[in-house]
């Protein structure tokens, strides 16, 4: 049943009227028109749909929009500040840490979640944290390099 749901999205208040049981991924992509967050598996296995909720990386395909009520949601679109790339975005581009780029928003958001919690992760910590974000093009090596570079810059 449609209900009023309010939360903060990329630093702006949003209000929408929808069924709170719907998954955040689809609400972002359809109702809110934020298409950077991607569907890859729909069941929490691939990480393409990763967003930040209250400073934690979460998989938006498995989180209902009702449960983010009053929370602070950041998507790939909210990472640039004043038209400037976030250090992670910059590092991904500079390291060529992507090929098709489909997994990239999820990778960046997941790494962002890691750096919020742990600004100087070790190689092993990066591997561990990124483990369940899948990249079929296999840009893994460069993604790790990019996260290391970004963490040094932040």
């Amino acid at each position, binding site marked *: 049943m449609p209900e009023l749901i309010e939360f903060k999205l990329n630093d702006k208040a949003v209000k929408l009227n929808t069924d709170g049981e719907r998954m955040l991924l689809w609400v972002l992509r359809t109702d809110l028109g934020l298409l950077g967050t991607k569907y890859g598996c729909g*069941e929490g296995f691939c990480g393409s749909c990763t967003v930040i909720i209250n400073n934690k990386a979460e998989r938006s395909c498995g989180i209902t929009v009702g449960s983010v009520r009053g929370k602070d949601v950041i998507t790939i679109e909210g990472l640039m500040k004043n038209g400037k790339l976030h250090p992670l975005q910059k590092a991904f581009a500079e390291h060529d840490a992507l090929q098709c780029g489909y997994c990239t928003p999820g990778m960046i958001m997941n790494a962002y979640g890691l750096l919020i919690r742990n600004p100087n992760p070790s190689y092993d910590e990066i591997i561990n944290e990124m483990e369940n974000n899948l990249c079929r093009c296999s840009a893994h090596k460069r993604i790790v390099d990019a996260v290391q570079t970004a963490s040094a810059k932040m």
Partner: protein
Amino acid sequence: MKNENYLDLNFKDIHAPFEVDRRDFLKIIGGGLFVLFTVGDTLGYIQQEQRRRGELPTDFNSFLRIDEDGKVTCFTGKIEMGQGIITSLAQMIADELDVALDSVQMLMGDTDLCPWDMGTFGSMSTRFFGPPLRAAAAEARIILLELASEQLKVPIEKLSVDKGVIYEKTKKRNKVTFAELTKGKKIERHIKEKPVLKDPSQFKIMNKSYTRVDSIEKVTGKAKFSGDIILPGMLYAKILRPPAHGAKLVDADLSEVKKMNDVIVVQDNDLIAVLHKYPDVAEKALLKIKAKFLPSESKLNNENIYEHLIKMAGDGRVVVNTGDVKEGEKGSASIVEETYYDSYCAHSPIEPRTALANVDGDKITVWGSTQNPFTAKEEVARALGVASEKVRIITPYVGGGFGGKTTNLQIVEAARLTKLTGKPVMVAYTREEEFFFDAFHPAAIVKVRSGINESKEISFWDYKVYFAGERGASHFYNIPNSITKSYGSGRGSAANVHPFATGAWRAPGNNTNTFARECQIDIMASKAGIDPLEFRLNHLTDKKFIEVLKTAGKKFGWKSSYAFPSGRGFGIACGSDAGTVVAMIVEVDVNKKTGNVKVKRVVCAQNMGIAINPQGATIQMEGCIMMGLGYSLTEEVMFSNGEILNKNYDNYDIPKFSWLPKIETIILDKKNEPPQGGGEPAIITVGAAIANAIYDKLGIRLNRMPMTPERIKEALSVKG
């Protein structure tokens, strides 16, 4: 090598005006300078193939435009799916034309704006498409020089070009820009003769590393994939699927779903779909359909498939036959006979197949994730019974393909649904549908019998491959008596062979063939008691193979060993694909208790001729290596009676971060040699190198891929 050889093509003037009238082509794209070109003789076989299928190619393949702002655009039916040609093709143009790389734009995969193209696969873009593309750019440069010469009143020899500006060498202020030259004009040229291309020593942009030109769009989330195209009033469709390949629909009860608000239900013969403005609501609605299916008649599964394939194989084709295998057998001191098995693998791009279709009057436009938009166009036209010029396919960025996005069912479905509903319709496959409708890498078998003589040389080689095809099947070693035969097709085999669709999977067939050949060679080396690297070198005269093997050996720090196994866990393999020659050495560790293989280090050397974008080529090698770990160690489509048991990534393991070995790649510096394929070669050696390393570690031979923990434990228990 000189340009003459570099550009081994004949250019002919093409008079047919490329269907301009029909499409009002030039009207759409405005003024400027156009150079039309065709990929000539080198692609002759592709065009033949196309004719065989009754499709007529337009007689030029691409063209280049320098518009009135001096911006350069290449229109090509090729697509970008991560392999990086959006950068490397632009590099070729920029270098030949003397413009900055960022002033070149690639317009790719739009069937109304781009001339016909067969599709993007087979590592062919740079090899076959590159030379004519360069020639077109060189031609454009000559035309611009001629125009500038007139305007500046200076003979061409006294002019120079830099970043889109033509100036007099001795008086730099006397200059004119490309934009000024093309302003208000419409100049159309076909390439008539081979223009003079730059010599590699003159390259400023080619053979230099550039990061991807599309990366900013992709790291900001702005890059548009097919699922990101939004049209007003569009609906998302979910389609009723059979539980198994070959299961027939008996009855579908739509009464429940028809009661739902805002849900549109479509039934058109075999196609039953529910549509809603939200994909998640459509998905829920689909669950309300109660459908009955007759079970599939297929009785095949992962275990009985090989027996079945052998039965279906029919007569083989001789691929190569030299000497006399019987004679060779007689002269053998020992003979090794082995059978190798490979499994069905999924392409599994992270972007599942997706398409948005829209009908506007009698014109259908589909944005689809496809590797072959022009094929998709014909497929849609056929399915809808409309003329093919009424169909336009636009290819946004493709989120990975690997050979898989060459079957375009989702595009056809979206097109049918838009025609039936009159609304824009998105068909975005779920992960489960993506697995189900993939055209898998085929399961295959290779039987090899080979012998060694008293002088520790291979005396004969009898190689039979079933259902992997010929790519990579014939060997390159010096063996006096040898026969290679191929049974069944490597892709899209006849009905009843495979229980579902199969197709080209990154370096099709070559992963299987290289696995079998290089494992067998390793066994022969151990029989001969010769270090596996030395043994290979002893049997090679082809300089390219010798060089890549030695280069990889040196980088790895290979030291000859005459113990079998040596216990070090080192494995080696080499092969050739898409004109590129590759050698790989890996180091593995195996946990005997769990059967887990950890690939610790991979050294890979390849000779790919000139690398247009060395960094891009390196990334492709890294990707090949990492992706190769999957088919080697875990990836196997599980199926039973037509049902695909892999529905998501929880039981289909693709490589993850923790698998990442130390990767060291070397691209031999071959500036003066023509470019060869880069997107596939390095994947072919991964399986054999790992199998050989596992043997070197533990003394067990894994003849079946993937080399899963269970299979390793089983081999260990057999060995005792």
